[in-house]
């Protein structure tokens, strides 16, 4: 019982920490703060929180939550690799207004005026892959094992959310990239479909027997009721 409540609390903490990273670019593009400042004040601490919880779980026996974090991370990274393949092809054929990881890199290192270099590209790609891993961790905790369709729907929702966000408007292409052309929504949707499909499939295999946060909550409160 105690263990389940601990799992719920730590799961929620990990969900909040993992949810920070993908929102930072949106906040920065909306003009509220510079991405370089947000990275120092929020991104690095949020990663530290996830690592800390992982270490605490390791020593306190919450191994199933750690397994979900680890699997979500792995599946998120692999899913992002799939997304990047589609995005790069789309960018090559003019379906995207810019090279997003490069843009993320110059914004992260606050060197937009100087343009991208090796270090900023490494920073940008790392941030993009961490975003993928963060979405993977969130999916793994929320859905547990999930099913074959949930990953695809999840990926689609991320893609639609991205196209509706200030991140896209600030690029000068309008919501859903209407001012840029059909290539933009097609590339974004296909890229996020690739992400969601890979993520869903991998989590379905890796998290076999894993419980979703909702199921854990149900189980905990049902147990509580039967005790009272």
């Amino acid at each position, binding site marked *: 019982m105690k263990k389940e409540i601990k799992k719920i609390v730590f799961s929620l903490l990990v969900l909040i920490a993992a949810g920070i990273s993908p929102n930072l670019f949106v906040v920065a593009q909306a003009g509220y703060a510079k991405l370089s400042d947000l990275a120092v004040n929020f991104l690095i601490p949020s990663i530290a929180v996830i690592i800390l919880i992982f270490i605490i779980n390791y020593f306190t026996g919450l191994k199933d939550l750690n397994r979900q974090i680890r699997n979500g991370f792995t599946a998120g990274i692999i899913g992002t690799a799939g997304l990047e393949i589609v995005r790069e092809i789309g*960018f090559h054929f*003019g379906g995207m207004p*810019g090279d997003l990881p*490069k*843009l993320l890199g*110059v914004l992260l290192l606050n060197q937009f*005026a100087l*343009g*991208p270099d090796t270090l900023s590209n490494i920073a940008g790609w790392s941030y993009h892959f961490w975003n993928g891993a963060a979405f993977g961790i969130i999916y793994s905790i929320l859905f547990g094992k999930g099913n074959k369709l949930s990953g695809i729907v999840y990926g689609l929702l991320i893609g639609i959310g991205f196209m509706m966000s200030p991140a896209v408007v600030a690029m000068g292409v309008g919501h859903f990239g209407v001012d840029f052309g059909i290539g933009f929504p097609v590339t974004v949707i296909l890229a996020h479909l690739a992400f969601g499909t890979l993520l869903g499939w991998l989590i379905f295999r890796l998290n076999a027997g894993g419980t979703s946060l909702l199921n854990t909550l149900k189980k905990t409160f049902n147990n509580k009721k039967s005790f009272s």
Partner: protein
Amino acid sequence: MRKTNLSLLAFFIAAILFAGSLFQSGSTYAKEAGLVTVQSKESFDQTVKDLRQLISKNGMMVLSELNQGKVLSMTGLSLNAISLFVGNPQIGNKLFSADRGVGIAVPVRLNIYENTDGKTYVSYVKPTDQLSDFKAEAVQKISKMLDQKFEQLTGMISR
């Protein structure tokens, strides 16, 4: 005798015109409404390198720079273009003391780019034109001095 004099006169006029055109193409590529464009004798990279050193030698600093070529590479466009924002703290102090609004025109933007013909050009808008709306005497005096500095600077790298 008269025929010879006329031929000589025609020759001199042609020589003067030719020399004039040579002189014109010597350093300045175009001069329109305050915009000065100079063709460099060096490649793009070498021009940028030379200009950085010349700016320093002429008592000025590159206060900031915008590498449009690299920035636009993120959109898939490939080109060589960079803007150097040139000034110095002393000049800035005097200008801003005379009028707080001069920030619209200083530091002076020096634009270096490789054109589609493969040649490298350096362009800037003359400080006297950029600062013409600021009537303070100090601003006008400094802007004339800056005109000379930039003419001298770009003259050193021009073909």
